[in-house]
């Protein structure tokens, strides 16, 4: 009989025509140092790693591109983090594509500084333009079904509802909405942002979503490399449990051992 890991490997994730073995995607921000980041990403088993587009530091002594520290075997998914308008997000996406790796973009149009909640109107507007330009758009959105449906209609390659606010570590706050989005969409649903620890990743994957993307939960753990490993296992466990199909919930006990054969 196939192990859970084999079952998962037999069903890879395909987004925008690209197939990925790992359903865990990881960010590259906020690590204490580059060596920890490199080892954590390796321990996560992730294939897709996200990166941000920013100005080069003109003082060359200070910094180098994150790509310098990443194994080229990874699939670099550029984001438009920090963009508050559709126009800015489109600008960043075009710059990212010009780097020459791929035409995928994790589209973020942020609407509120405190919560980093997406501006769904700007998101849809930017998604339509970028899809027209041939981008494979993975849209970071909230848990709203109607927005998710519209993003799919706009031609997004994947829709990425949040578990909870970016960097909050609060876990999956709205499993029903995420499940509904997964049930209604045809494109892959990747939960992005908000998980805090391995159980959050596991519960998220148990909803049947296609994948999960996280950054802070690993980078801000006391031991990022160990947490990356835990997240890898949790993502696989959650996916395997979803495929296995959980038992029904009951509010009364049912004994596991036979009632017959008890001593007088």
């Amino acid at each position, binding site marked *: 009989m196939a192990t859970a890991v084999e079952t998962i490997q037999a069903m890879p994730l395909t987004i925008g025509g690209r197939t990925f073995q790992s359903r865990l995607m990881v960010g590259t921000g906020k690590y204490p140092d580059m060596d920890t980041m490199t080892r954590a990403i390796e321990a996560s088993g992730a294939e897709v790693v*996200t*990166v941000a587009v*920013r*100005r*080069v530091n003109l003082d060359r002594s200070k910094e180098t*591109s994150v790509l310098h520290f990443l194994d080229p075997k990874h699939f670099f998914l550029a*984001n438009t983090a920090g963009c508050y308008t559709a126009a800015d997000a489109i600008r960043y996406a075009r*710059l990212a594509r*010009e780097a020459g790796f791929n035409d995928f973009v994790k589209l973020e149009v942020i609407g509120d500084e405190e919560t980093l909640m997406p501006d769904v109107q700007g998101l849809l507007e930017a998604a339509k333009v970028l899809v027209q330009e041939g981008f494979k758009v993975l849209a970071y959105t909230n848990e709203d079904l109607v927005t998710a449906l519209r993003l799919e209609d706009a031609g997004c390659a994947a829709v990425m509802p949040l578990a909870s606010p970016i960097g909050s570590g609060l876990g999956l706050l709205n499993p029903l909405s995420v499940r509904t989005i997964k049930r209604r969409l045809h494109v892959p649903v990747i939960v992005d942002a908000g998980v805090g620890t391995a159980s959050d990743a596991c519960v998220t994957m148990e909803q049947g979503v296609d994948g999960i993307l996280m950054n802070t939960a690993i980078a801000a753990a006391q031991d990022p490399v160990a947490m990356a490993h835990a997240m890898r296992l949790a993502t696989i466990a959650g996916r395997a449990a979803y495929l296995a199909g959980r038992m029904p919930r009951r509010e009364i006990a049912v004994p596991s051992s036979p009632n017959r054969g008890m001593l007088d």
Partner: protein
Amino acid sequence: MKQLVDVVVNGEHKQIAQGATLLEVLAELELDPRAVVVEHNRRIVRRPGLGDVTVAAGDAIELVHFVGGG
């Protein structure tokens, strides 16, 4: 001696030789053209074209690359 013109690179004022190409600007800044993406007055200039575009006074140049992010 070549005349210098004021341009803005990544938000910083810089003096660049008049008529310099974007490729020469990158060389001046010791940046590898393969490691950056260049935006010149809001238009992306692809790598093969960097040697063909010259810089004029008041131009805005953005040089970007990938950094850590989520």
